[in-house]
Structures are given as structure tokens and as C-alpha cells.
């Protein structure tokens, strides 16, 4: 049921969207987002770092922020979860009884095209999260799960897709191997297993810094991403 897609009507919309995107982008560039020198002395984040243990008694900054400093926001987010389930419950509980649809409805064009469009972006974002693990919240585990959630979307939208279990197993083991290998390098060069032998490389706060930590995070990210994807694909059933 493909309708003819009229590109001429979309051009103004695309132009306007680009204008908004450009404005927001330049505003963020002016702020200097992500650059180390932006962090002001008295900013909230620095206060969290310097005072959180003393003020909240929690030695974990993140927990202190989520549960104490911004606990009220967390309450709001929990409310959103409650809403999602209550809203779904309200819809489902009011469905006419006996309406059991056995066959899944095939996904619409918007879903399939949209999934193809956003999947690379989700994977890119996952990669960003684990590559920046030593700079910003997140890390290998979170990044890997983000990648797996993107593939979960793909599995839901394209049920006929067969997950490449061999490739997944391969990347899983390669990632594990490289993690162990990095450890061995530490043993070989520094004399200690997992020694951060190149910790002096780069400047703190930049992408290339913290020595082996980003490399290990990359390995963890790939490993977790591959494992979770395999898990999800197996849960779908079919070939194991």
C-alpha cells in the first residue's frame, strides 16, 4: 500500500526543521557543550562532587544526585512509569472481551522506515556512551544495553530477521579476549595484571585520556551489546 511520496510538499518542512536544528546547534556551540572549560567553579555539578558525601552521607555521587539532591525529580519520573502502566491498563481493561487477535498486525510503513532510520543513530549513541565512559555518565554496560535496545526494536519490527548468532558469538568472544588481552599487556609491560600502563597519555577531560580505561569500556560495550542482542533474539524463539 505504498502511496506516492510527494517530495515537493516536504521541502518547506525540511527547510524549517533544518533552521530550528541549526539554531539550536549554534546555541549549543556557543555554550561550548562538552568542553572541559565550560564547567564553572560554582556549578551544580561541581558542588555535587565536592559536597555530596558530606551532605548526604552517600559515597556514590550518582546515587546522591538521583535519590537525594534531585530526589523530587526521580519521584516525578517514577510517576511517569506509573502513568504508563496505569494508562495502558485503562486502555487494555476497557477492550471488548473475546477480542483475541492471534495474528500480529504487520508493522506499517512508518514503523519500518522509521526503524531503518533510527537504528544507526541508536547504535551510534550507544557507541558514544561507551567511548565517553571515562568522561561522562554511562560506560560500557550502559552503552552496550543501548545498542541491544536498538536491535530489540529491529527484531520487533522485522520479526522475520534472523539474528546472526555466529557473528554475535564471535564479537562476544573477541571483546572478552581483548579485555583479557589488555590485562595481559599490563602484566607484560607494567608487571601487574590490568595495569593502566598508558595512563599518562592525553589530558584529563579529553577523549584521549585515562589510558586503557576507554579501551576496556569499548570492549565491554561490544561484549554487552552482543550478549544482550543474542539474548533478546533467543527469547523471540525460533532458531537457537
Amino acid at each position, binding site marked *: 500500500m505504498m502511496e506516492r511520496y510527494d517530495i515537493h510538499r516536504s521541502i518547506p518542512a525540511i527547510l524549517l526543521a533544518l533552521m530550528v536544528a541549526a539554531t539550536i546547534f549554534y*546555541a549549543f556551540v556557543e555554550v561550548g557543550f562538552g568542553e572541559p572549560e565550560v564547567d564553572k567553579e560554582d556549578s551544580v555539578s561541581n558542588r555535587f562532587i565536592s559536597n555530596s558525601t558530606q551532605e548526604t552521607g552517600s559515597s556514590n555521587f550518582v546515587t546522591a544526585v538521583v535519590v537525594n539532591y534531585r530526589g523530587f525529580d526521580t519521584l516525578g519520573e517514577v510517576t511517569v512509569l506509573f502513568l504508563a502502566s496505569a494508562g495502558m491498563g*485503562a486502555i487494555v481493561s476497557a477492550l471488548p472481551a473475546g477480542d483475541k487477535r492471534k495474528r500480529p498486525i504487520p508493522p506499517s510503513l512508518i514503523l519500518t522506515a522509521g526503524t531503518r532510520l533510527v537504528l544507526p543513530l541508536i547504535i551510534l549513541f550507544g557507541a558514544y556512551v561507551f567511548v565517553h565512559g571515562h568522561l561522562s555518565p554511562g560506560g560500557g554496560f550502559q552503552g552496550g544495553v543501548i545498542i541491544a535496545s536498538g536491535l530489540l526494536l529491529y527484531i520487533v519490527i522485522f520479526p522475520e530477521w534472523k539474528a546472526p548468532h555466529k557473528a554475535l558469538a564471535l564479537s562476544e568472544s573477541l571483546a572478552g579476549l581483548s579485555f583479557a588481552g589488555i590485562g595481559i599487556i599490563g602484566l607484560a609491560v607494567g608487571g601487574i595484571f590490568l595495569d593502566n600502563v598508558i595512563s599518562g597519555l592525553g589530558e584529563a577531560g579529553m577523549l584521549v585520556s585515562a589510558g586503557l580505561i576507554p579501551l576496556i569500556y569499548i570492549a565491554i560495550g561490544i561484549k554487552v551489546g552482543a550478549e544482550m542482542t543474542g539474548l533478546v533474539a533467543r527469547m523471540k524463539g525460533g532458531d537457537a
Partner: protein
Amino acid sequence: MTFYNHLIEQAPAMVVAIPLLFAFATPLLFKFSAKFGKFWALLGVFATTVLMYVLAWDVLSEGGDVVNTYIFGAENTQLPLPGDNVVRISFAVDGMSAFMGLIMVTVSLAAIIYSISFVKKYTGNAKFFALMLLVLAANIGMVFTGDLFNLFVWFEVSSIALCGLTVFRSERGEAFEGAAKYLIYSTIAGLILLFSVGLLYGQYGHLNIKFLSEAIGGNAELLMVDKVALGLMMTVFALKAGAVPMHMATPDAYSEAPAPVTAIFVTASQAGLYAMFRMVFTLYGSNIHLTIDLLHAAGWIVIILGVVSMFVGVTMALVQKDIKRLMAYHAISQTGYMLLGVGVGMAVYATGGFDEFGRTAMTGGIFHIFNHAMYKGLLFLTAGAIIYKAGTRDLNKMGGLGRDMKLTALFFIIGALAISGIPPMNGFASKFLIYESVFKFNPIIGAIAMLVSLLTLASFVKVFYSAFMGPRMKEMARGEVPAPMLMGMAVLAGIILVFSMAPSLVVRSLVDPAVNALTGDGGTTSTSLTLFTGHGAWNAVVFMGAMISATIIAVMIRSFFGKKGMTPREEGKKPYLFGNPTEIDGRPIVVPGSNLYWGFTKALDRYYKPVEKFHSGIINEYVFWFVSTLVLVLLVMLAWVR
């Protein structure tokens, strides 16, 4: 006394915590018994209302510019801000927040009382009441918060809860459509809001509104970031408020949501208005020499949005034949008045014009927020009562309900007179302030404001004629609606009547503190029982006295000189007027409501054709209008403001 102090100290947090707590427990209690669950929900909203009134009394009696802060998780919750506790989330309740809080709890109370019998015939009541309480909590959170990210959180909670409530009648496909449109619209708006919060956080490293306000004011010049962030926020909140051209999801969602939900939908959109005014005046108003151009540009944007909303809303309402859709377009149109009033105040802020007419316009605009919540809430509830009995929303298929539903008809008349701004109703008092001041600002806009009121009256005459007059339709249920529904309507109708009789008292004790809280101006509009605008004066009691004496004189003249020999009901025997038992082919003769203004709409065909095309019902195009507005607003902010 100490208990009272303690209560006031904890009240800001409790007013949000109580509905949240009751909401989470409601589904559990419904498991025991539905009656108990409903009682529990009612108890929750009642407790919130009482506490909110006590808090508002405390804040408003201090003049409104004293801020009652509550810092979450701090040892002392009331430390002045921005102090050492600036890193924590805080509530800052001043006159404007308390004013908005009063609106939220009052309408929610009426809506929940009304719902007790209204939703009886549906399943999923437990979720319904839980979601109603959550909307209340989110709305209050939105108007109380002193933290930008927290504002975003409550914005989301409110949008998602309302979306869930909109699909409550899930046997209707249209309900899903309306809710999906609203969800997409508010999610896109929410993300843009998050962008703007991120911009300010990136620039200043803080989220506290008071701190940010001082940081923006402390700059040597306006940064691009400041302008872009304001432009994004204003557009987002205008969308939440339902301003044209970003209103299109509003009629779809309002008309599909159950009536009590629509009533609180109105207050949720007013929380959007509040947030817009709060951002402009509080976030960008700390150093007026720096931001004066920005505020004036913002004012003009708000005025234009207001005028367009007023006009498009009312003209679209006039041609609707679905009773709730018609009222939804009126909600858009009335939002235009609030935008116009406050926009004029913004556009002349910190100039000579502000004292001359800007403050009066702002007072009118903010007073109108309260009035609108009351009468629009009441009208939506009466629409629910009409649908409850008539079983249809189509104005052309209903009729004769006035014969059975005398009280509902009375409530409808009160609401309709108030929304049309007919003296001596409260809607007139606030529109009077707007007319007089806006006319001085720009006579053409003032004239449009009056014309819109006229068209509003015309379209409510149509609803009254279609629903309550004429012959009884055979397929309609008889009798009046159940008592809880009448009680819910009576709460709002009672407030409208009280406000109508003493507008200057209300302005002095409620509206002036709210305006002072926004502008830091400290003035008052009225000092006596009469409202003064500088040109005119309005006193409802004097007007009522004059009306009653005029009526007595008219009756006397008639009884002395009038034509004798009229028999009762003789007028009614002619067909076509007010539905007589005359029948053709077994059907009573009625002129359908949608044909009442046929001549008018036909003459304006050239206006209606493109405007109706503009309401295409396609969500992609709705988003296109939102993005276009965003571009225009950003253009004004970046190109016009130095």
C-alpha cells in the same frame, strides 16, 4: 500557632505529595471496593483543596511578592534562595503560583465530584481516579516549582496523564486518535523544552530559576543562548496553552476526553500559560535594562498569538456541530484574551505605558485565567451532562433537554453568559479590563477583542437553542442528571456568581498579588468596591441595581400601556419557533443548530475555506505548524532583538 506555622512551612510540598500519595493508593483501594476507592480519591482532592486554600491565604495576604520556598531534602526547607541550597530542587510559591494553585484545586475538586457518577458505566474507574489525581499533582508541581528541570518533569507527567485520560473511552477509535495527536504534540514540545533547559544549564551550570534569573541579568550583554532558550520555551508553552496555530490537537483531545477530564485539561493548558509568563517575567526580568527589548519582542509575539487565537478560535467554534468541539474552540479563543492581556503588559513593560494601561491589561489577562477556568470548566461539565442524557454530541440531533434538565440549563446559562462577557458576569469584569486597556494600546486589537465576544455569545446561543429548546427528541433519556454531577457543576457556578458580584474584591485579594509577583510592581488596580481602569469603572452591584430598576420600570410600563388580551402560550403555536408539537412525517419541525448562522458563514466563505483546510486533521501538518511558529519566534528573537 506553632502548628499553623509548621503547616504553612510544609504546605508547598504537601499540596503535591497528598494527591500523589492518594493517586498511588487509589488502584489498591479499588481492589477492595469501588465505593471506597472513589471515597478515597474524593478525600485526596478535598484534603489538597483545603491545604491549598490555607497556603494561598497565607501567601496572598502577604501581598504576593513574598516567596514561600520549600527546598527538598535540605535541613531547613525555608532557607532563602539562591543560597547554599541552590543545588537542590525547590518550590517557590509566590502570589502567582498560589493564584494558579487555587484554580487547579478548585476545578479538580468539581471534576472529581462530578466524575463519581459520570464514569460509573465504564470499566477502569480505578485508573481514571488515579490519573485525575496525578494531573492535579502535576499541575500544581508545574506552577510551584522553582527549578527548570523539575518544570519539565511535571510538564511530562501532566501530558502523559492527560493522554491516558483522553483514551478512557477506548471503545471509540476517535479517542485513540485524539490522544495520539496530543501525545505526539506534547512530546515534541517537551523535548524542545528539554533542549532549552539544557541550553541554560550548559551556559550557567544551574537549574534554579531564581539563580538563573540573576545570572542572565548579570551578563554584560544578552547572549544568543538566552534568546534562543526564551524563544524555544515561549513556543512550547504557547503550544501547551493551545494558542493558534499550534492548537490543532486541542479540539481533538478536548472533544474525545470525558467531560470532567476536559475541565482539568483547561487547567493544564493554563499551567502552560503560567509557565510562559513565569519564564518571561521572572527568568528574564531581573535586569530590565538588559532584557527590555527581549521582553517587548516577547510581548508582541504573545499579542499576535493572542489575537490570532481569539479570532480563529471563535470563528471555528461558530461552525462546529459537535458540542464539545465547539467548546474546545472557545477554550482556544478565550486563551487568546489571556495572552493578549498579559502580552500588552509585556510589550510595554518598564515603559511609561505600563503604568498607564499595561498593568490594567495584565490584571485583566490574569483575572481572566481564573474566570476562564471556572466558566469553561462549568461549560464542559454541562456539556458532559447533556451528552450523558442525550447520548449524542451532535447539536443537530439533540433538543428539548431544557424540559427535564432545568438545573443543568441554569448552570449552562451562567457559564454561557460568563464566557460571552455579558455584564454582570465575572467574564465581563476581566474582559472589561482587557478591552479598556488594549483599546488604549491599539484600538484595532481592542475592537477585535469585542467582536470576538459577540461571536462567542452567538455560538452559545446556538448551543442553548439546539440542546435545551425545541421538542424532546424521542430517543433521549428523561430526567435530570445524578446529584454528584449537579454538585460538581454547582461548585463552579457558585464561584462564578460570587466572583461576578464582587470583582474588585477578587482583583484586590487574588489578582493583584499575582501581578505583583510577576512584575515586582507593587501597585494595585482597585482600591474600592469599583474596578477603575483610568477611563471607565465597573461595579456589578450598581449595575444589578440599575438592571433591576429598569426591569421594574419596563414591567410597569407594559402593565399600564401594554396590549391586553394575550393568552399564554399563544406565541408558541407558530411553527419553527422553539419547537411546537407540530409534526411532519412524524418528525418534529426544528431548525438544526448548525443552520442558525448559515448566512453569516456563507458570506465569509472566502475566509472559512482556507481556514478549514488548515485544520486538516493530519498530525504531520500539525507538527509542521509548530515548527514554523518556532522558526518565526526564533527569527524575531535573533533578528529583531539586539
